[in-house]
C-alpha cells in the first residue's frame, strides 16, 4: 500500500440489524485520504456519511456493526483490532470532532480536564502539570482567548464557537495524522463557521495533517477541500478533486446538489430541490439507488446498479451516463426555473 495515504477504506459495509432486517447504511465504500489533504464526504442526511466515520472510530452502536471491508491506517486494518487496540489509535493517530459542540462535551467536567485526558490516556509518562501546560498551549493555538482561564471553565460557560474550538483542541492535542470532522460547523453561525474552517485548514497545513470532513454543505467543501466524495444511499456516487468536481460535474445527483444551493440573483420565490426522498435502506431498489429521483433515468438504471467508473483522470462516477455523455452542460448550476 502507498505510504502517502493516511487512511484507506476498502469495500466498507456497515449495517444496522433491526427487527425488520439488515439496513446497509454504508454499502461498499472505497475512500482514500492522502497525507496532508482535506477530503470532503458529502451527502444528504441519512446517506451513511456519519456511519462511515463512526465505523472508522469504532463508535457504531448496537444494533449497528461493520459487516465487511477494510479500514487501513498506515497498513493496519482497524476492523481487525480489538476494542482495546483500536482505542490506542483513537485520539492519538485519528481523532474526531462532532457536529454538536453543545452536547459533545461532558457537562460536568471542566473543559481543560477533558482535553488533558486525551494526553494522559495516550502518554502514560506525561505529568499532570506538563499535560496542563500542553493543553493551554493548544488552547492558544486554536484561538481560545484567555486560555489559562478557560482551562477551568465548564462547557456551559462557553459559547458554541468556543466549544467547537475546545473540541478541535481535544482532537489536535496528540497531533493525529488524521482528523475526522463530522459536520463540524453545522451548529454554528456562518461567521463562526468561516473562522472554524480556516482554523482547521491552517492546522492541517501546519502539521501536515489530513482531514476527512463530513458535511451536507457544498459551500464548506468548496471552501477547504482538496478532494471530494459524494455519497448517496450508502454508496460513493462521485469522486473527484474539488475543481474537477465543480467544473465538470458528472453525476446527476451531484448536479442536483449543486443546483440546490440558493444563489443571490436566483428567483427568490423558488428554491431548487431534488424531488423525492432518500430510498428506504431496508428495501433498496434493485438498480441505481438514485433512479427514482433522477431526471435522466433510463430503463437499465432500474434493474442494474452502475459501477463506479473512472470517467476522466482522477474522476470517478457511478452512472451509466458518465462515460457516454461527456460533461453534459458543465456544472449543472443553471437550476432554478424549470420545475
Amino acid at each position, binding site marked *: 500500500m502507498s505510504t502517502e495515504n493516511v487512511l484507506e477504506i476498502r469495500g466498507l459495509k456497515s449495517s444496522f440489524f433491526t427487527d425488520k432486517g439488515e439496513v446497509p447504511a454504508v454499502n461498499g465504500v472505497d475512500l482514500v485520504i492522502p497525507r496532508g489533504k482535506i477530503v470532503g464526504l458529502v451527502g444528504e442526511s441519512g446517506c451513511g456519511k456519519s456511519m462511515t466515520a463512526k465505523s472508522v472510530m469504532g463508535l457504531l*452502536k448496537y444494533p449497528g456493526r461493520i459487516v465487511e471491508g477494510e479500514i487501513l491506517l498506515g497498513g493496519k486494518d482497524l476492523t481487525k483490532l480489538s476494542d482495546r487496540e483500536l482505542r490506542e489509535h483513537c485520539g492519538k493517530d485519528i481523532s474526531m470532532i462532532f457536529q454538536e459542540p453543545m452536547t*459533545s462535551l461532558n457537562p460536568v467536567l471542566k473543559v481543560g480536564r477533558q482535553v488533558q485526558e486525551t494526553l494522559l*490516556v495516550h502518554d502514560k509518562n506525561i505529568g499532570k502539570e506538563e499535560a496542563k501546560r500542553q493543553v493551554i498551549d493548544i488552547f492558544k493555538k486554536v484561538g481560545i482567548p484567555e486560555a489559562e482561564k478557560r482551562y477551568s471553565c465548564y462547557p456551559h460557560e462557553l459559547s458554541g464557537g468556543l466549544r467547537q474550538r475546545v473540541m478541535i483542541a481535544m482532537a489536535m492535542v496528540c497531533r493525529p495524522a488524521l482528523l475526522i470532522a463530522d459536520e463540524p460547523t453545522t451548529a454554528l453561525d456562518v461567521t463562526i463557521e468561516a473562522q472554524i474552517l480556516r482554523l482547521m485548514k491552517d492546522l492541517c497545513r501546519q502539521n501536515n495533517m489530513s482531514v476527512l470532513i463530513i458535511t451536507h454543505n457544498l459551500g464548506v467543501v468548496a471552501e477547504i477541500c482538496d478532494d471530494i466524495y459524494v455519497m448517496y444511499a450508502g454508496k460513493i456516487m462521485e469522486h473527484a478533486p474539488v475543481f474537477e468536481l465543480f467544473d465538470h460535474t458528472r453525476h446527476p445527483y451531484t448536479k442536483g446538489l449543486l443546483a440546490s444551493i440558493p444563489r443571490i440573483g436566483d428567483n427568490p420565490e423558488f428554491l431548487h430541490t431534488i424531488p423525492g426522498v432518500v430510498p428506504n435502506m431496508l428495501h433498496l431498489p434493485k438498480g441505481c439507488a438514485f433512479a427514482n429521483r433522477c431526471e435522466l433515468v433510463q430503463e437499465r438504471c432500474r434493474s442494474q446498479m452502475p459501477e463506479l467508473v473512472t470517467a476522466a483522470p482522477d474522476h470517478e462516477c457511478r452512472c451509466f451516463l458518465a462515460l457516454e455523455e461527456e460533461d453534459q452542460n458543465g456544472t449543472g448550476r443553471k437550476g432554478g426555473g424549470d420545475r
Partner: protein
Amino acid sequence: MKVILKRFLSIIPVLLGVIVMIFIMLRIVPGDPAAILLGEHVSPDTVERLTKSMNLDQPMGVQLLSYIWNALRGDLGMSYTMKRPVTELILGAFPYTVKLSLMAAVFAWAVGLISGIIAAITQNRIPDRLFMGFSLAGVSVPVFMTSLFLQYMLAFKIRAFSLTSDGSLYSMILPAIALGWNSAGSIARMTRSSLIEVMQADYIDTARAKGLARRAVILGHALKNSMLPVITMMALQLSSMMSGAVITESIFAIPGIGRLATEAIQKRDMPLLQGTVLFTTVIVVVGNLIADLLYSVLDPRIRKEA
C-alpha cells in the same frame, strides 16, 4: 452560600403550613380527647377539669399560637398517655429509626447502584434481565411481605437472626433489608435507565473517540452524569425512611418514630401525634434540601444558575 440560605429560609413557610394543617385536622376528628383519655364512667365535672387543664377550652387560634411558640422552644407538649414530654419521647425513639434507616439506606444504595450499573452495561443480556427481574420484585412486593418472608426464612427456619429487634446492630439487619428492599429495586431501575440514557449522549462518543477504554468512559464520564437523578432519589428515600418506617418498625418491634406515631394514633394521643408528624416533616423537608444541594454540587450548570 446565598443560595443555601435562601433555600433554607424557604422551608419556614412549609413548616408553618404543615403545623397549621396538622393542628386543624386533629381538631376536626370527632371525639373529645379529655373524655377518651379518662375512659368510661367518669363524671362530666372531671372531664371539664381536665379539658381546662389541657387548655382545650381556649379558642383554636390561641391554642395554635401557643403550640407554635412552644414548639419553637423545643417543647411539643406532654403526651396524654405516657405522661412524659413529647420531645423526650421522640428523641428517645429517633436513634432507633436513624439506625434502621441508615442501615437500610446503605443496603439499598449499595445493592441498587451496583446492580443498576451491572444491568446497564450488560443491557438486554442475561445479567441485565436477571437484575431487573429481581428489582421488579423489589419494587412490587410490599414491605410487610418482604419482612414476613425474611422473618420466616432467616429467623424462623434458619435461625440466623432473631425474630424481633432488640436495637443492636446485628438484630437490625433483617429489618434493614426488609425496609431497603423496595428502595434498592427502584434505585437499580433508575440507575440502569439513567446510565443507558447517558451512554447514548454525544459526549460519550467524544470520550470514546479520545481513546478512553470502556471502563474509563463509564466510570469517568457516564457515571457522574447518570447519578444526577439517582442521588436525588436516594436522598429522598433516606429522609422518608428517617421519618419512620411504620410497618417495618411494627413488625420487628423496633421502638422508633414509626411505632410512636402508630401508638399515638391508636390512643388518640394528640400532642404525641402532632409532635411525631411535625418532626417527620422537618426530616423530610431537610432531606429534600440536602438532595437539592447535592444536586448542585454534582451539576455545575445548576451551581451557576443559582
